[in-house]
């Protein structure tokens, strides 16, 4: 008998009938709590930054979950949550038309202007 062993990396075990128990499919078709995106202000004066996501039944629970999940090590002073379905994102296929026109407007950057060194505080 020839044994074929595929190369697996840690945490990457193949899908086959190996593993823990008999195949029992989930009994209920239960609905997940909605997904929320979490934004955290790490200290006063800084922007809120996307930290990750989580599940919660309502907004209050989402804020509390965010506090317990994403600020266990003093990572924040303020939390925003928004249900993920309300986030509208730009389309990556539009990247060229969206962002490239900005790349040649170098005159928008202060370094574009070559001014005499004597000029201070500008």
């Amino acid at each position, binding site marked *: 008998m020839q044994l074929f062993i595929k190369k697996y990396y840690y945490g990457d075990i193949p899908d086959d009938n190996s593993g823990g128990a008999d195949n029992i499919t989930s009994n209920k078709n239960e609905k997940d709590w909605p997904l929320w995106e979490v934004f955290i202000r790490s200290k006063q004066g800084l922007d809120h930054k996307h930290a990750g996501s989580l*599940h919660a*039944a309502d907004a209050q629970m989402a804020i509390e979950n965010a506090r317990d999940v994403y600020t*266990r090590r003093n990572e924040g002073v303020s939390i925003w949550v928004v249900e993920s379905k309300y986030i509208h994102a730009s389309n990556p296929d539009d990247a060229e038309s969206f962002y490239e026109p900005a790349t040649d407007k170098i005159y928008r950057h202060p370094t574009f202007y070559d001014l005499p060194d004597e000029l201070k505080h500008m």
Partner: protein
Amino acid sequence: MNDPLIDYTLHLADNTLILAQRNSEWCAHGPVLEQDIAITNISLDILGQARNFYQYAAILLGDDATEDTLAFLRDNREFKNCLLVEQENGDWGKTILRQFIFSNYQYLLYEKLQHSKDEQLAAVAAKALKEVTYHLQWSSEWVIRLGDGTDESHQRMMNAIEELWPYVDELFINADYENELLADNIAVDVPSLKNKWIEKITSIFDEATLQIPQNVFAKTGGKQGVHTEKLGYILAEMQFMQRAYPNSVW
């Protein structure tokens, strides 16, 4: 030895340690990942409070007492926690209700204790009050959610109320050591907390469509060291290592 301040400090410590021990049983078994993390956070907060109280009691006791000798080498009859905190977790509803009952009590207790004449107790209470404020909010919201959720969750909350209410009154009866410390403004007079406690319970229960049961026979004794049988099992498990391997550093 009968020093009321030591007994009182141990009472405060035991209450929190035993509840932390109970809550931590949920770790890895919660109803949803986010709430597993939440109840474990509460467990950690309360364990921290217990350690602060034990460390203070150890200083008061002197000799070789440490937070660990107090937690792991005292027996059943020496523990002074209320019966409420040693009750089994039951389902999530019962755990939530116990947390709500206790956090509500702790909030009122620490609010007063932070002005205790005993500076150490006052300091621990002031720090813990911030944590408890959150526990109270969190558990209140869950009581409302479950009480006013589905028929099943409502029924489960009613069961939990029936199971836990006999242990409520004990929270508001002064033990000897508390009475002895009242005159010096060290201990909080717990009977005086009850009205406010009921007010909060009533307002949350109203929202949760739950009712406070009437004429419940109160079970007491824990604060004086007479416990339910459950505490023995908690201690057997919790103290196993220190008992099996005495005089070791971990």
